[in-house]
């Protein structure tokens, strides 16, 4: 690895390149599968596969801590949450894509954006830019944790507060409103009945003009 870094301008090793391309193809394939499947369960499973591929790519970037976190938090916790919700509201989609003629313009813009970005990446960080040699501890739990708790202690605490707010918000938003809805319906019904009772039928009035109040 050091030899490859020292060479710098040389093209990357063929073996590394093949492994990277396999992982990149894996990630892109399952990402496309995620957004094209009609069945939400298939989509969630494809997303899990995408996250596992991404964890491998993170490890290739010597971000070991992030690779582990990706599997634990994303492929573990967040995806379980998704699976739960899919199981609660499993509905087949009638028309999966909302395609309109104007969207063609979006496709053109997307293609142009892709072209521009690839050019930008190629010029901004040319493939011949040598990667710096990093220490053995780069990206490990110990060194990232050290930086997290020394330099980024305040953001860390802020994110814990954010998670707390999200938990409370989630419970409040998703709690059942059935009792309130039922009470509202009962009140509406009572109001309707009272309105009907207070205004007499025109037909009845002709028959019994005197006893109009008796039907209350």
């Amino acid at each position: 690895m050091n030899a490859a870094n020292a060479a710098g301008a040389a093209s990357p090793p063929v073996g590394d390149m093949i492994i990277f391309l396999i992982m990149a193809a894996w990630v892109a394939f399952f990402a496309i599968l995620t957004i094209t499947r009609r069945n939400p369960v298939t989509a969630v499973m494809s997303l899990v596969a995408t996250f596992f591929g991404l964890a491998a790519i993170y490890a290739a970037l010597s971000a070991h801590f992030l690779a582990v976190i990706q599997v634990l938090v994303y492929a573990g916790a967040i995806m379980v949450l998704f699976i739960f919700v899919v199981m609660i509201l499993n509905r087949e989609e009638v028309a999966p894509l909302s395609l309109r003629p104007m969207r063609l313009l979006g496709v053109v813009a997307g293609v142009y954006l892709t072209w521009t970005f690839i050019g930008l990446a190629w010029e901004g960080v040319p493939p011949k830019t040598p990667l710096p040699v990093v220490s053995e501890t780069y990206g490990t739990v110990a060194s990232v944790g050290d930086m997290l708790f020394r330099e980024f202690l305040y953001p860390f605490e802020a994110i814990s507060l954010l998670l707390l707010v999200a938990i409370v918000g989630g419970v409040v938003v998703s709690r059942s409103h059935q009792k309130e809805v039922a009470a509202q319906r009962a009140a509406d019904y009572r109001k309707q009945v009272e309105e009907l009772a207070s205004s007499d039928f025109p037909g009845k009035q002709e028959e019994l003009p005197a006893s109009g109040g008796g039907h209350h």
Partner: protein
Amino acid sequence: MAIPTAYYLILSFVLFLIGTTGVLLRRNALIVLMGIELQLNGGNLALLAFARQLGDQKGHVFAFLVIALAAAEAAVGLAILVGLFRSRESVNLDDATMMKR
């Protein structure tokens, strides 16, 4: 692994693009949320690629914070989805027009 950073950046852009496509074109709110997750992961990959290029670990900390943020977003988003399903009996985003005036 000595893969040039540009390749990682292109992969991150492809991920972000796929996520954006999912967000814009799908009607199922679940798939839209998954598209948002893909977008966040594309951003994370770019952060980590630049962190490796610069030999700096700050990008790792930011990626960690983004993952925590994604967890919060997924929790709130899915809760809203469940609430939407309770009131509309549908997860089709075209049905969610309560705030459209």
